[in-house]
């Protein structure tokens, strides 16, 4: 009989372990819902699922944290709370196993068997929670639709009254609202997406750099419009023609000095203009609208 029980437990555990998919690590940067997401920073950080970058937002793993995106509210439950939740799953599993085992057998042995089974299942569920909900620093991340939050806030008085007077109807109303404008994701699991936000995409956003030059020189890369991934650092070099010399750079309408090389971080679209001047003090003046002789 003991063999049957032990065998059943082991088979159950084996099935559950096999069904758990491997967690894919990602090492890329990207935006999602107007929030900057993380990349693998070094070999010591195997990112379990994409979440807002701690370096970028100065987020502590020991603090609760939240921010608003375009469509979603982004939350982090701190490390201590997340670990308590994970541990509580094991504890409550063991406790409930003992209760149910004791009731079914009416003996202490039954309670012990129930305790053992409950502990084992609690460990499995805790492991599942760890894999799917907790990041590499043992913090739980979750996302909720801004539309749904706004709807709850706008209707909170009516909802409160309805919850007291007619709980069943209140439940229906809330669920209907969630199914129409709701989004709920925890860790690497998207439970529902009525907003159409989708999941974080590993493809980084791209930005354009428009380079134009005045008469009297060239740039490397040459004048034109180029597309770069977000965060990429682009170096542009100015080379003056004979009898001309380089004067200054204009980046997004701002004078950026007279160094022959300039670096541009592609955190948004940029326009860059190189001004050259001839020996006689010539050269075309800067036109903010980009109407330059050798422009793109």
């Amino acid at each position, binding site marked *: *009989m003991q063999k*049957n*029980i032990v065998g*059943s437990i082991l088979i*159950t555990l084996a099935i559950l372990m096999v069904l758990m998919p491997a967690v894919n690590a990602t090492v890329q940067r990207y935006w999602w819902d107007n929030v900057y997401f993380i990349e693998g920073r070094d070999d010591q950080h195997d990112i379990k699922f994409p979440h807002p970058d701690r370096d970028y937002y100065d987020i502590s793993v020991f603090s609760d944290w939240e921010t608003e995106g375009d469509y979603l509210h982004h*939350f982090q*439950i701190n490390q201590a*709370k997340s670990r*308590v*939740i994970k541990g*509580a*799953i094991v504890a*409550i*599993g063991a*406790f*409930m*196993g003992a*209760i*149910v*085992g*004791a*009731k*079914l*057998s009416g*003996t202490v*042995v*039954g309670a012990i*068997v*129930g305790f053992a*089974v*409950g502990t084992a*299942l*609690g460990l499995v*569920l805790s492991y599942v*929670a760890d894999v799917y909900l907790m990041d590499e620093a043992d913090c739980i991340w*979750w996302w909720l639709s801004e539309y749904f939050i706004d709807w709850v806030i706008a209707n909170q008085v009516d909802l409160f009254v309805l919850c007291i007077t007619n709980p069943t109807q209140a439940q229906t109303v809330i669920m209907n609202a969630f199914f129409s404008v709701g989004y709920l994701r925890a860790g690497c699991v998207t439970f529902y997406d009525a907003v159409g936000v989708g999941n974080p995409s590993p493809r980084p956003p791209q930005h354009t750099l428009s380079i134009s030059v005045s008469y009297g020189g060239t740039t490397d890369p040459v004048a034109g419009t180029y597309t770069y991934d977000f965060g990429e650092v682009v170096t542009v070099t100015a080379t003056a023609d004979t009898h001309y010399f380089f004067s200054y750079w204009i980046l997004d309408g701002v004078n950026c000095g007279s160094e022959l090389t300039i670096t541009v971080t592609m955190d948004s679209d940029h326009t860059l203009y190189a001004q050259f001047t001839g020996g006689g003090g010539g050269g075309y003046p800067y036109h903010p609208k980009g109407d330059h002789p050798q422009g793109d």
Partner: protein
Amino acid sequence: MRKILSNIVALAVLIAGILFLVSIFTVMLFSLAVFANMNLWLALAISGSIASALAYAYGCLAKKLGVKMEWEKCKKT
């Protein structure tokens, strides 16, 4: 043979019940601690108490429906 079958059914009921109840506990704890912004220890106490009461009720219901873990008798046979 009947007792062995009965024990297997009891074990299945036990496992299913624990999985179900622990899931309810987890959702309840998560909802109270996160959505209701309740103190974590208070949320733990409330959801743990409710889950334990549900476990007790579940055990009573299963026993009433005839599910029985016959540990002692089974050992003697």
